[in-house]
Structures are given as structure tokens and as C-alpha cells.
């Protein structure tokens, strides 16, 4: 059972956008790991996606700003490394929003591996839904994405790499 404070905090944090993919919240992305009401002190644990992701600091600052603004005081925000973030932590609504935004959501581990080894027709084009897609590069516009193109609609797109 969540306390009223915890419930409130989750709602506030669910409005904090990821700075690089502003349609998805840091909660949907699985960055907020826990929110605990410790006798009136709110303890929030967050975890980085990739170690070097430049958004990590921005996310921490936005989380602090949002909690301040909502006056959920006092609170402590802590970065934890374990369990390390994986794409399984992205929520179902998060995956749907990624797709609508034009980013192919992470596939199953085995499909992901085949796709990144260069096997074609593994990842669905987020633009037209065709499976006739091809990897351009394992590394894309941010650390979490790979670069693909669709051979049907010819649209280049980002694929959110599976990280297990």
C-alpha cells in the first residue's frame, strides 16, 4: 500500500520528462526505481540508463525541481547503480509512446541480438510498420539507440537498443 505522500510523489514524477525523448516520463523509462515515505521524509532512488548518458544529471536536477515545486519536503534523491537499468524497466505505456514518437521500442533479447548483428527484417519500422528494415549503425543519436532505415518507406529511424 502506498502512503498518500508516495502516491503524490509518483504522480509528480510521472510528469517529469526525459530530456532526450520528451514524450516519455522518467517513471515510464524506469529511471525512478523507488519512492519511499520514511516517516515523512521522501526517499527517491533513481538509476542511470547508460553510465555516460549526458542526460543523467539533467534528470536528477529535474526530479529535484519537480519535488521542490510540489513541496514534497523534505526529500532525498539518491542515484543507485544496482540493479543496473535494463530496457525491461521501460513500462508498456512507455514503449507505446516511444513507437508513436518514431522510435522503435526495444525488441526481445534474441531478436535484438540478430538485428544488431546485421540480420535484416527484425525490427518493425515505427513509421509504416514494414519489417523490411536494415541496421545502419549499432550506435545512434544517443547512447541508448541504434540507427536503422526502412527499405519500404525509406525513412531513417532510431531503434531503442535492448539492454539486459
Amino acid at each position, binding site marked *: 500500500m502506498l502512503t498518500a505522500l508516495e502516491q503524490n510523489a509518483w504522480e509528480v514524477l510521472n510528469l517529469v520528462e526525459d530530456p532526450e525523448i520528451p514524450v516519455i516520463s522518467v517513471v515510464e523509462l524506469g529511471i525512478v526505481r523507488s519512492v519511499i515515505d520514511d516517516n515523512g521524509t521522501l526517499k527517491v532512488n533513481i538509476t542511470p540508463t547508460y*553510465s555516460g548518458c549526458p542526460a543523467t544529471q539533467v534528470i536528477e536536477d529535474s526530479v529535484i525541481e519537480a519535488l521542490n515545486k510540489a513541496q514534497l519536503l523534505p526529500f532525498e534523491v539518491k542515484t543507485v547503480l544496482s540493479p*543496473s537499468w*535494463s530496457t525491461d524497466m521501460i513500462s508498456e505505456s512507455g514503449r507505446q509512446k516511444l513507437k508513436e514518437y518514431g522510435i522503435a521500442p526495444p525488441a526481445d533479447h534474441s531478436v535484438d541480438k540478430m538485428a*544488431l548483428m546485421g540480420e535484416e527484417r527484425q525490427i518493425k519500422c515505427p513509421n509504416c510498420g514494414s519489417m523490411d528494415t536494415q541496421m*545502419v*549503425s*549499432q550506435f545512434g543519436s544517443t547512447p541508448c539507440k541504434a540507427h536503422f532505415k526502412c527499405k519500404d518507406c525509406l525513412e531513417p529511424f532510431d531503434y531503442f*537498443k535492448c*539492454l539486459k
Partner: protein
Amino acid sequence: MSDSKNLMDVALHLGDNALILGHRLSEWCGHGPVLEQDIAMTNIALDLIGQAKMYFDLAAELEGAGNDHDHFAYKRDVLDFKNLLITETPNGDYADTIARQFYFDQWHYLLLQELANHENERLREIAQKSLKEVTYHQRWSSEWVVRLGDGTNESKEKMQHAIDDIWYYTGEAFMPADFEKGILPDNLKEQWMSNVKAVLDEATLTMPSDEWMQEGGKTGSHTEHLGYILAEMQFLPRAYPDATW
């Protein structure tokens, strides 16, 4: 030496490897042979620099002197750095960069697999996080070794040259420094040799033969290159202490 001092030195060694190689790769930014590989190298650089930050945070905790990760990156001199010499070798041409990355990644991957089960919790969680990223690095550098080795006559010649050239920097990883004994695994060489050989075979390249190996990085005896790297990397925080942006 206390256990905690040794563990701090291990954290610095692992952090320095990541920081210096990450810095080297960042020098490719805007200079990659094609846009996708420019992005790949800078992505890998970012991962490594992020990993360095985690190790330096651990070193700071163990030191207990109130320093933060920036202190270890920016306020130490050549003699204090414990990175493997291979990480500071110049980028050279694309084949040289790939050869360096390939040898390093193959070792890094095996090392992190072991550290992901380490008895020290902090080291273990950093390794578990890093291992996921290094899995991608290792795949990328191996693929390029194969692509260039089993490519045109010119790419093959350049790749073989690079593989031979940097070979004598690969032995150091398997010669334990005093501070790492009992903390880092000392049995990775055989597996590394066999994994490297498998990729070189696929790339139709010849594995260099085992011979004399360069060493000294872990104990602060660096090549002349490290001083230049630090001069560029540390200039700003040294000239403008506590600058923010």
C-alpha cells in the same frame, strides 16, 4: 598497504583506463571516416567516461578525504595515473584505433565478467552496469577487425600492420601490479588469447607471436603521450579552478 588502499588503487586503475581511452576516442569527434562511425566512437567514449566517473566515486569513498570524481580526473599528474599504456597510445589511422579498441575490449569484457561476481559490492555493481555497455563495444571493434581484415588488399594490409604494431602493449594487462593482487583476476590471458585468435582468424589476419611486452602504466611509468593528453584534458579546470557552466 591496507586492503582499502589497494582497493582504491584498483578503482583508480580501472577508472584511469576508462578515462584515458574515452578521451582518446573523443578526439575522433568530427573526424570519423563516416558519420555513423564518428557517432559510434563518441558513444563508446561517453560510456567509458561515465564508467570512469563511477570508479572515481568509489575511489573517493575509499579515500575519505572529501574529494570527488573530478579531483581524480583533473588534479593528478602523470605519475599518479595507473592506466594501461595501450589506452594512451595515439589514435593513428582508423585501423590503429580499431586494433587498440579490439585488444582492449576483449580484455575489458573478460575482466568485467569476473568483476560482475566480485565479493566487493561496489565493484560488483559498477562491473554489472559496465558489462552491458562493453558487450556492445566488443562487438563493434571485433566486427571492424573482420571487415577491414577480410576486406580489400589495402584495408587488410593496414589492419594487419595495426594489429602487429600495438601488440606489444597488450601484455601489461596480464602482469598484475602489487595493488591488484587478490582483487583482480589473474587468469584471463588464456581466454583472451583464444578469443583474439578466433576473431583474427575470421578476419584472415595473422596473430602476432608472443614476445617481449611493454609495461609500467599501472605503476605510473607512462609513455610520452600521457602528458599531452593530460595537458589538454586538465587545462581548463587547472587554469580556472572550480569553473562551472
